[in-house]
């Protein structure tokens, strides 16, 4: 049984992943619970007898780690050169702070608490120490989201951040590192938007963290960030600079607020102490909202499809069919197509549309 006391470092750093999972289908109660309670959907699927599919290849994990370690090798020489080339940093910049945990390829930081403390020290120094010369690049900056967003824990690690002096203020800018190839105009738009959305989550988290610290002279969190991809087939970074994260950060703000609200509501409803509840069972028996997109992230998708098939729901034909047919089942839609008498106004309107489209077949 999964419990709240089973938090590991890995789970704690999964906040972003949980948020992004929830955003894919916020209407689904099971998905929301999984994100809020930090219980993997794969575990729930397994408990219901479905074989989970979503996992990462060890080769992909190794490649990601190798890429990051290459970027940050020798005081972040490789990424610094690229950042200077695209204007994120000025030429001949210096200073690198590595806050990555040793388990993630870092050198000195052994625990999450250590990383959080060093991150806090950095913010305080930027605010209060006039003689402080900050590093220009920080790897693994770690944040504890202050509002208690999402239960039971909300810790975020920013892949890379950079610091620059602008108009007497320190400006922090966030970056997202992805190992997938940047193929210019042919780059997968879905991958770019995912990376941008994740950078937006960082930007928002950094903003609220800095605000919550109530510093005398707080650093400015830039609304523009950058995405670090690879040149196809190599470990050379390709940086997309000046990515406007305003709307992505707003999306994150709204999302976190909503998720927080849902979390509070769920907890209120569940008067008992959570430690006595089988969380997997709770998720498995909550309401679901099956959509096509579920196949891209949720191990419960086969179970939900089975239910949709059994209930003859239009979603088995896809999102578009589901939008048109609404609550009318597939079998009933065929009857309407065959001229059966509609029993509701909704059915009547649907029949008009279907017959009009069918009539065009015979032109």
């Amino acid at each position, binding site marked *: 049984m999964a419990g709240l006391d089973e938090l590991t470092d890995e789970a704690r750093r999964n906040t972003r992943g949980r948020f992004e999972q929830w955003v894919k289908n916020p209407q689904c109660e099971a998905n929301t619970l999984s994100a809020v309670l930090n219980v993997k959907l794969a575990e729930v699927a397994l408990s219901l007898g479905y074989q989970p*599919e979503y*996992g*990462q*290849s*060890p*080769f*992909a994990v*190794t*490649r*990601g780690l190798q890429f990051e370690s290459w970027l940050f090798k020798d005081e972040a020489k490789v990424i610094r050169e690229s950042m200077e080339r695209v204007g994120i940093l000025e030429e001949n910049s210096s200073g690198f702070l590595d806050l990555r945990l040793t388990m993630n390829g870092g050198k000195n930081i052994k625990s999450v608490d250590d990383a959080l403390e060093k991150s806090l020290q950095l913010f305080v120094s930027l605010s209060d120490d006039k003689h402080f010369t900050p590093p220009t690049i920080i790897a693994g900056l770690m944040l504890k989201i202050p509002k208690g967003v999402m239960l039971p824990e909300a810790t975020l690690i920013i892949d890379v951040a950079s610091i620059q002096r602008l108009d007497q203020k320190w400006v922090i800018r966030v970056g997202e590192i992805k*190992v997938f*190839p940047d*193929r*210019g*105009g*042919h780059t997968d738009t879905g991958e770019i938007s995912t990376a941008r959305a994740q950078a937006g989550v960082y930007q928002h988290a950094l903003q609220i963290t800095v605000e919550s610290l109530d510093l005398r002279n707080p650093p400015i969190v830039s609304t523009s960030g950058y995405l670090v991809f690879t*040149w*196809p*087939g190599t470990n050379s970074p390709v940086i997309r600079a000046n990515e406007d994260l305003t709307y992505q950060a707003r999306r994150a703000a709204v999302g976190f607020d909503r998720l927080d609200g849902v979390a509070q509501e769920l907890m209120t409803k569940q008067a008992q102490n959570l430690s006595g509840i089988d969380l997997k069972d709770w998720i498995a028996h909550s309401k679901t909202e099956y959509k*096509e*997109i579920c*196949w*891209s992230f949720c191990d419960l998708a*086969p179970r939900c*499809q*089975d239910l949709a*098939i*059994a209930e003859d729901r239009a*979603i*088995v*034909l*896809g*999102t*578009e*069919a589901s939008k*048109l*047919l609404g609550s009318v089942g*597939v079998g009933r*839609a*065929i009857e309407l*197509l065959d001229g059966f008498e509609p029993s509701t106004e909704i059915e009547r309107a649907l029949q008009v*549309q*279907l017959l*009009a*489209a*069918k009539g*065009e*077949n015979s*032109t």
Partner: protein
Amino acid sequence: MSTRDIVRQLEAVRISQPVPRYSTLHVRIVENPFMVAFVRMAGESRPWGIAYGRLKDSAPRVITAGDGRNREAVAQICEEFGVAMLQYFRAEGHTFNPITKENLDTKELPQIWVPGDRHVEMFHHLEYAYWRVRKGDDRTQPLTVFARLSGWLFRESGRIGQQQIIDASRALRDAYVFPADTLSLGNLTNAVAWFKKDGSLPNKRISVRASGEQRVSPTLDPGLDKDVLAPLIEQRAELLKAGRTPTLVEQKIHEALSPELMARWGSMVDAYHILASDNRAENNGVEKLVKSTMEKYVVEFQRLERGMLDPSGDPIFTPHPETDFHGSAAAAGYFRMQAADVAYTASLVHDDAELCAEALASGHAFMGEVTDVWNTGVGRVTIPNWQVKVRIGEISRLREGEDYSLVGNPKSKVSIREVEVVDEEHWLVHIEWESPKLKEISGPICAKPLDSSWIGKRLIFVPCDTSALTAKQAQAVWDAKDGVGAWLTHGRAPVQVEESFIDDITQLQDN
């Protein structure tokens, strides 16, 4: 997806199997095409293994690299595959009988099949990997030429109506409507299973889903990576570290990758046979699309390769895999794509009742009854004119000055002179015949446009093929380099690119 598509989906549900989308097939099914399937190591972009060959070969050739990250080993398999591709495509310098403008024959269309869109993308990755030539390098090396061919194929794959690279998964989705969601059909094994499985629809859905557990994308199942391949790769690395030859382990890796490649190959061959055994005829317009495809191949690939063979070593324009880095190149490319889009529907709609109905539903075509026929020519000149009564509900995009063809007569051209509102339901459309004026046209009757027997006939008019005009605009873009606003439209690349590349663009502009 239109309501019409959803009605088709419901029809597919009714018979528990896919139904034809159109009345004809819109793709040329070559008798013995070249086929290829790739697998790659997760996180890598180049192939780890390749299965390739001709459909009628007894078995495909399956080649793998010991480690998908080893550049030399991967280059070796890519080169072998590349040479076979260059020979099949009768590329300049790699065959005794290259395809040229003079010997172009649409019956000899080189066509390559891949299982899905990620395999099409692999050609782009291959271009990235091997296209670069440094000063003094032999630019006619097979791997480099293959990279350019890969780039050509990848770019061509995005042009509507092209017939040279067939994504089997997409070809099935274009030809049939399935009683399933589109996302699941992205997996070719799912789409193919709909034709193979029997039983009630709910049971069929479950068994189709089970078939889809076999991946078709080049990336392997993480479970296979974790349980089988990762330990083998580790063993291989240890052997190399100890200075021993990893032949046996590499053989095991080959044995693990081969079934994966063969599964992808098998699904692709199944898709081919489904389409090849379809009862529908090839659309008459496909011949035109094939000719256009081959002409483009000659002009945009073969011509450049002939230049590469020139011993003078003069710079030859080589498209960059990423982008065009040039406003004019982008504009010309846009016009070429737009021309392809126009030509596609205009070529096929005359021979496909379903496509025609779709054009009517979307307002791109219109239907009406001829109410009057008269001549506005003076003396010996004949200018046939018709008045057509059109129900307003049937049209939405009709505008004065636009050109249409009478369906079934692809070369015919009429121009809309005037549109007059009769009542709440009808418009009177005055059309003037531009071509033909004196020859017979076919429809419900065969008669000249001026024949009064057309009166009372209900006819469909579809958009005229104006692709030639749009294609000319592509050239006009380059010709406008000295015109007004050239500082804006013909500016150089805003980012720093290779010097030789700038030279190539300049050369192209100056010619």
